């Protein structure tokens, strides 16, 4: 037993000597391998060969912890506050030291490997590290012990080391070297030093050495990975922003990928390829995959931030939309696009400062662009929902849509109209037997609203989408009817070929029955033209001739929208002209007569002044007023109001027009005279705008007015019973009353206050001490 113990002790000592790094120099022993092997055999015979590895790696761990790691970090910490260049030099020294340690361990590891190969189960540490070779255990221990705790500034130093080299690399491989600028030429773009003391070669030399040594130790990826990735990400970000930001008319995907493959991967190759022992061939290709994803993501991010502009610029921005579409297929940025676009639409479009027509234009652009981006229509639905809700609240939306549909100017919508597909409305039910080709079927994206049929989402054309803002054709058709009426009664153009063509398009869209009223209206114009011609013909046969030729626009009252009413009694000579026309009409059309809308129409009159005759095209009301002044050149408002049976306020507005034309002058308060002599006269009144654009139809304002009259009766009732009330009470009580009644109008406190203030001004209401009351 004792002899055995002694042999064992001797063998163990031999093994310790051989395996200790930097221990007994191996060359001093003769036949060292035989000596080592027989020592191992003794341990094998005693069944304790396993303790060799356990002992070895325990020693190694201690060595790394106590000697290697402190020494390694000492290279940095001793000169922490020195410049970046010194830091890089220190990195080189530290790496050289670690490399040397690693080399010293190599022979021992080889021996150990030869003992353990195949004969016994894997060492527990080997299993723990998940590695096959014992040399990998050493690498794992390096990583785990040395890099478990890194000193301050280490990552920044590494970042600088790699970015410095990248700059040199980029400069050396730059396509456009040198410029005309002298100063630039004197300074090296690579290292930033004066060209005479350029350090580029030195930097690259150090760079290659560090990478090679790190690879030989087996920790290249561990040390360089974070810095290289961060650096490359930063470069991608900069490049994408510089190249693509704000440019939507070019596709960038191809050139970006090209750039990634040449520049970025070229740089990574410099670190990770070329005689590397520990870096696999798949390193670069897996880098490429990750970076490509990052590139797409970065590019998508840049375009998503600008997507509102992209939409506004569509279709010029189509390349950007296509690029983004490709990016969305490869990244998970759909949700982000939707939320970003929604919020930029909200802040830039949906507020009171933006014209309804501009919102509509943007909405139409959005429909077009988003259809390209996402043919399933889901993004469109999600993004444009707030736009639709907002447009629904504006009172002039329908009018804007209808007028852009039928105006000369905007051909875009007109083109859509002429495409002439029948309207697809949300309300129309969707059948089960959709005649879609099942082979081409695609599921809806996951963020689609299951409540909406995918077919209706896809089939909707722009006009349908606009009409669907309201979901009702009637509203649209009514608005069109009002616009058409207005146009007929403002232009008095009997040539309606163009209107008929529009109407035909609209009929295809909205259905015949919806537009029947408009058809009658246009027929009225055509009939009026014929009747005018007949009457003129008869007059010619009888050789009759009037000073003023009367033509008429004879309307079928049941089919036209409500007319704006205005009180006036025309002067007798004007009345007579109309009566004469009525007689001729009655003779032509048995059992029918005419009711004149005296205030509507257009007069072309000559006004004879002392020194000249001026021609005007004005409303009959304006004409009637100025004609009074031709008979008597001074009138008070009161006199005129009596003669023409017109309210004074309306009269003053009409007089204002003649003042603006310089024909009437307010001589003293409410007394007007005709200005016969024009010389040296300056206009003393500016034309009021509403005189020019006054519509023939009852306005929504007038309709609102009617609603207010209903409110007024409620208010009078309240104040009779409760004597005095603050505005808040009046408002809440009104809401209570009107909720039960037929009125659906929403009235804000602000609007109510305006109305009440007007009543105060008209002395129908009193306001004091914060409460309203009826005058006694």
């Amino acid at each position: 037993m004792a002899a055995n113990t002694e042999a064992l002790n001797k063998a163990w000592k031999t093994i310790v000597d051989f395996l200790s790094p930097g221990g007994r120099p191996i060359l001093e022993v003769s036949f060292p391998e035989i000596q080592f092997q027989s020592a191992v055999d003794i341990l094998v015979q005693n069944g304790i060969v396993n303790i060799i590895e356990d002992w070895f790696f325990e020693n190694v761990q201690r060595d790394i912890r106590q000697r290697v790691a402190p020494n390694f970090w000492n290279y940095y910490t001793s000169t922490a506050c020195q410049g970046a260049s010194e830091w890089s030099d220190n990195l080189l020294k530290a790496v050289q030291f670690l490399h040397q340690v690693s080399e010293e361990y190599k022979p021992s590891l080889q021996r150990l490997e030869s003992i353990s190969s195949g004969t016994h189960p894997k060492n527990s540490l080997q299993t723990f590290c998940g590695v096959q070779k014992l040399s990998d255990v050493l690498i794992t221990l390096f990583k785990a012990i040395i890099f478990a705790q890194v000193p301050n500034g280490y990552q920044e130093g590494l970042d600088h080391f790699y970015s410095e080299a990248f700059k040199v690399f980029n400069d050396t491989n730059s396509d456009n070297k040198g410029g005309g600028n002298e100063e630039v030429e004197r300074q090296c773009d690579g290292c930033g030093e004066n060209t005479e003391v350029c350090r580029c070669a030195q930097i690259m030399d150090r760079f290659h050495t560090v990478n090679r040594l790190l690879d030989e130790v087996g920790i290249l990826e561990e040390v360089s990975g974070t810095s290289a990735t961060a650096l490359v990400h930063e470069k991608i970000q900069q490049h994408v922003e510089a190249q693509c930001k704000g440019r939507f008319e070019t596709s960038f995907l191809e050139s970006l990928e090209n750039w990634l493959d040449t520049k970025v991967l070229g740089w990574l190759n410099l670190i990770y390829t070329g005689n590397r022992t520990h870096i696999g061939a798949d390193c670069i290709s897996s880098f490429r995959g990750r970076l490509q994803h990052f590139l797409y993501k970065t590019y998508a991010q840049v375009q998503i931030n600008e997507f509102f502009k992209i939409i506004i610029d569509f279709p010029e921005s189509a390349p950007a939309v296509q690029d983004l579409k490709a990016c969305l297929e490869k990244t998970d940025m759909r949700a982000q696009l939707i939320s970003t676009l929604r919020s930029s639409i909200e802040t830039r479009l949906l507020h009171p400062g933006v014209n309804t027509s501009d919102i509509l234009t943007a909405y139409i652009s959005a429909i077009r662009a988003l259809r390209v981006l996402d043919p399933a229509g889901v993004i469109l639905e999600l993004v444009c929902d707030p736009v639709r809700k907002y447009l629904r609240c504006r009172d002039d939306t329908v009018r804007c849509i209808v007028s852009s549909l039928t105006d000369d100017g905007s051909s875009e919508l007109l083109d859509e109209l002429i495409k002439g597909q029948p309207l697809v409305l949300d309300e129309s039910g969707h059948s089960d037997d959709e005649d879609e080709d099942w082979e081409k079927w695609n599921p809806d994206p996951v963020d689609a609203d299951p409540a909406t049929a995918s077919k209706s989402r896809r089939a909707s054309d722009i006009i349908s989408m606009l009409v669907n803002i309201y979901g009702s054709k009637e509203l649209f058709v009514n608005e069109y009817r009002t616009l058409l009426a207005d146009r007929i009664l403002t232009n008095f153009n009997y040539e309606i070929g163009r209107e008929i063509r529009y109407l035909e398009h609209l009929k295809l869209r909205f259905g015949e029955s919806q537009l029947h009223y408009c058809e009658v209206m246009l027929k009225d114009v055509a009939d009026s033209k014929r009747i005018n011609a007949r009457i003129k013909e008869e007059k010619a046969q009888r050789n009759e001739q009037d000073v003023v030729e009367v033509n008429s626009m004879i309307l079928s009252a049941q089919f036209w929208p409500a007319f704006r009413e205005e009180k006036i009694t025309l002067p007798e000579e004007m009345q007579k002209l109309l009566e004469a026309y009525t007689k001729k009409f009655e003779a032509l059309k048995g059992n029918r007569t005419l009711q004149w809308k005296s205030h509507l129409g257009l007069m072309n009159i000559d006004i004879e002044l002392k020194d000249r005759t001026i021609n005007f095209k004005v409303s009959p009301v304006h004409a009637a007023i100025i004609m009074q002044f031709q008979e008597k050149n001074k009138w008070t408002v009161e006199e005129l109001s009596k003669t023409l049976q017109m309210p004074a306020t309306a009269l003053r507005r009409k007089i204002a027009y003649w003042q603006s034309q310089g024909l009437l002058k307010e001589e003293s308060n409410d007394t007007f005279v005709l200005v016969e002599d024009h010389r040296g006269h300056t206009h003393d009144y500016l034309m009021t705008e509403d005189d020019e654009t006054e519509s023939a139809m009852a306005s929504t304002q007038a309709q609102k007015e009617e609603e207010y009259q209903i409110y007024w009766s409620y208010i009078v009732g309240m104040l009779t019973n409760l004597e005095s009330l603050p505005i808040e009470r009046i408002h809440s009580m009104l809401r209570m009353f009107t909720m039960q009644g037929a009125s659906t109008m929403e009235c804000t406190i602000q609007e109510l206050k305006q109305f009440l203030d007007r009543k105060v001004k008209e002395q129908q209401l009193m306001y004091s001490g914060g409460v309203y009351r009826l005058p006694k």
Partner: protein
Amino acid sequence: MNQGWTAVATWHWVANDENCGICRMAFDGCCPDCKLPGDDCPLVWGECSHCFHIHCIVKWLNSQQVHQLCPMCRQDWKFKE
């Protein structure tokens, strides 16, 4: 001649009622079978002085088997010349 006036009027049937006694639609509109008012859907008067859309009274008369009576006053219907 320079001066002219384009005046605006609405046309109406000269009748002693607003609506047709048969279809209840406005005389100035048209009967339920028609699309266009006026010449295309004229009024006719009976000797009893009642009047109807021509299409309405003709339909009515065709539906009467024995006597042809005015639906308003039940007198014999005769078209006024």
